[in-house]
């Protein structure tokens, strides 16, 4: 494959990430094969003041990797080597284009794995994971990307090389790694990542329970936490999501339930036995209408298959869907879901909800038809309302998908002008000419008033 793509038609596959509502073509797509080439690209772009947008596998869900029409799309997917696995130190040194899952696959022979597991883990790259601070279904217990990396090699916008973090558990001076993680490609270009690996648990088991309302399911989640158990994963799905997933995956979900919980516990075999029994008892106490404990790995995989297939399953019911990503305090779950159902009627668009219940991260999937411009408009307005609702109950506009282009408008509902200005000052410290992924992540000061006035759509420069 060539390293520079100029033709518009060949650039088409790069015009958007997984949020295809937003798309554009860049001046050039470049696919460097070495870190030195990345450095050259950055130096040239810095000299010529050309915007640079980094891209991994393009699985992002907030248009963070949408090309800039006057810029370079810097595609890091060819930097895809696992450089080293240190078994004793339990670390892996990898290039940014390595897929999330392949790290765990490479470590598996040492009985180790990389914990964060976003739904797109087959395809998404570690560089993208760092840029978005990706989570997954196991982050209540095992943390986000920021908790599972030790060190980054970064190129500044000028093309200067920098190693941040260390092989130890902290670094001198300011924690630039914390700042770079989740910074959506606005502060630097990641060229190498050292991740922490964890021992594969002896055993994992899933308890699935059906409930006749989302609020009883929500109470059951609280009861597990109150009992002092931190599940490896704790997921909720509502009626529409259950039915779509069951049609798609035949996972054995109770179709009649208003909500299901999938609760995974892992650890030593004794601990898992102890906790599955406790969880099953708590679910029954809280009015579970059905209960299944996975017998073996095959059944555990099947129970997860439905959840992991929820997005494509919804995709079969509707020409398009729009995935939201607000987080809320769990105690607000019932209120928020009922509000979402009310908004669903108001906007005349169906919505299915999947929810990382353990950590309060809600993914409403708004179904619409993108061939109808009015439906697009309604879906976006509905989505914006959900994010504002999340903020109003003490939550935030994005738990793991990032701001990108999509949520620039809602940044003003979560942050004050002074806070946004502080973000902009941080951006200036790294990239004074605003050449790294401009128009994403944080609203730009001079446009701030417009953001407050306009709905979220195409507000990038």
């Amino acid at each position, binding site marked *: 494959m060539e390293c520079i793509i100029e033709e518009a038609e060949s650039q088409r596959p790069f015009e958007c990430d997984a949020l295809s509502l937003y798309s554009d073509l860049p001046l050039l797509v470049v696919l460097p094969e070495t870190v030195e080439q990345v450095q050259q690209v950055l130096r040239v772009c810095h000299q010529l003041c050309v915007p640079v947008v980094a891209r991994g596998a393009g699985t992002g869900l907030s248009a963070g990797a949408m090309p800039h029409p006057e810029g370079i799309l810097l595609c890091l997917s060819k930097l895809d080597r696992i450089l080293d696995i240190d078994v004793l130190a339990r*670390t892996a040194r990898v290039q940014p284009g390595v897929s999330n899952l392949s790290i765990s696959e490479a470590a598996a022979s040492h009985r180790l794995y990389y914990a964060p597991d976003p739904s797109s883990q087959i395809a998404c790259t570690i560089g993208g994971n760092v840029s978005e601070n990706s989570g997954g279904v196991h982050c209540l217990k095992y943390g986000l990307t920021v908790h599972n990396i030790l060190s980054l090699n970064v190129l500044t916008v000028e093309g200067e090389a920098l190693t941040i973090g260390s092989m130890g558990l902290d670094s001198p001076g300011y*924690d630039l790694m914390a700042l770079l993680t989740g910074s959506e490609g606005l502060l630097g270009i990641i060229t190498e990542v050292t991740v922490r690996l964890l021992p594969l648990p002896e055993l994992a088991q899933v308890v699935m329970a059906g409930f006749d309302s989302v609020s009883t399911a929500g109470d059951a989640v609280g009861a597990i936490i109150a009992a002092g158990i931190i599940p490896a994963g704790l997921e909720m799905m509502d009626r529409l999501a259950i039915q779509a997933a069951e049609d798609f995956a035949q996972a054995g979900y109770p179709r009649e339930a208003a909500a299901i919980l999938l609760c995974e516990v892992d650890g030593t075999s004794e601990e898992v036995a102890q906790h599955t029994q406790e969880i099953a008892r708590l679910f029954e106490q809280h009015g579970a209408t059905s209960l299944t404990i996975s017998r073996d790995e095959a059944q555990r995989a099947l129970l997860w298959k439905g959840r992991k297939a929820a997005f494509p399953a919804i995709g079969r019911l509707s020409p398009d869907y729009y995935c939201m990503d607000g987080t809320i305090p769990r105690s607000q779950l019932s209120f928020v879901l009922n509000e979402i159902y009310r908004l669903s009627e108001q906007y005349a668009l169906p919505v299915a909800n999947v929810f990382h219940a353990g950590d309060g991260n809600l993914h409403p999937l708004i179904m619409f038809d993108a061939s109808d411009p009015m439906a697009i408009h309604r879906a976006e307005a509905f989505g914006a309302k959900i994010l504002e609702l999340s903020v109003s109950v003490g939550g935030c506009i994005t738990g793991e998908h990032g701001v990108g282009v999509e949520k620039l408008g809602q940044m003003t509902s979560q942050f004050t002008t002074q806070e946004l200005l502080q973000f902009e000052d941080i951006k200036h410290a790294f990239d004074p000419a605003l050449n790294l992924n401009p128009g994403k992540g944080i609203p730009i000061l001079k446009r701030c008033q417009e953001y407050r006035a306009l709905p979220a759509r195409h507000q990038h420069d």
Partner: protein
Amino acid sequence: MTDQHRPLQSENRSEHIIDALQQARKTRSPVYINGGGSKQHLMGRNCDYTVLDVSEHRGIVDYQPQELVITARAGTPLVDIIAVLAAEGQSLSFEPPLFNGIATLGGTLACNLSGPARPWSGSIRDMVLGVQLINGKCEQLNFGGKVIKNVAGYDVSRLQAGALGTLGVLCEVSLKVLPRAEKTLTLCYDMSAPEAVRHMNQRAGQPKPLSGAFWLNGQLHLRVSGAASAVDSTVVQWGGEIVTSDDILWEQLREMTLPFFKDTGALWRFSVQSSAEVRLDFGTTLIDWCGAQRWVHGEHPAEALQQAAVEAGGHVSLFRGGDRNTEVRSPLNSVEQGLQQRLKKSFDPDGILNPGRLYSWL
């Protein structure tokens, strides 16, 4: 929040802090931010500025046990927070040192101090969810939040960990908290330091509830905590001598009150790759954090220690004692130094917040 959660003292002094900072900014005279004062002579360089006392800005603002989140003002003593959490069977999983009960939440975040559980349960840097701070422009700002996942905007909350107050005066901190372990046991083994480093790292690679690993004076201590069934089965499988009154041992390690720490001279802290080779030429070493944190005493040339730290994949700092008017941390290269200076300026353009506390140039 029920009444039993309400600590004795609760006061919002942020107006007072803003006033003091405005004065400092007007007169271009920096402040030294002080909470409980427990870390005044630790970690940072000497700073002789007007003291900004934030210890009265205290109190628990919000605690929802089922959300696993607590929010408190920065001047709140950790002991108050721990007591409130304990009543609900929860804890600060990063095991911060309490320093005779005077360590505060804000100071602990500013210093990024965590105890023996750090490699497994994370640091305060890992657990912080949100902060309210006042920057050098006297603006009271909120970052992050009270939910476990939040990726909107740059992670300014985590950036405060280890910044020693140089980017803002911390006002409120929200933390993720966790249930206390059901059971804890400690095992002891006689072995040399190099053997111990290998052994603890091998153990950490096994799927067992390891929660502490330190070596001192020929003895390796491994702590296992978690579900009672998992702790019991692990102890049977691993063998070794079970230590009685082990909570005192780990407390002394956490509080730095073990006899090893009695020496009042220079105390150096290495933060290195956990499996890095043990250097025996710097005298007695205490190895904690499964090998990732190592302590040595004495007057050594800083360059020799820094070189050793680089070879071990990390850095070294003069944690306590020694010459605190010079640099006390490993040097940064010019590119990173420039970034750090610009970052400082973005929060504190007039340099009124603890300037020179981290580095002379910051």
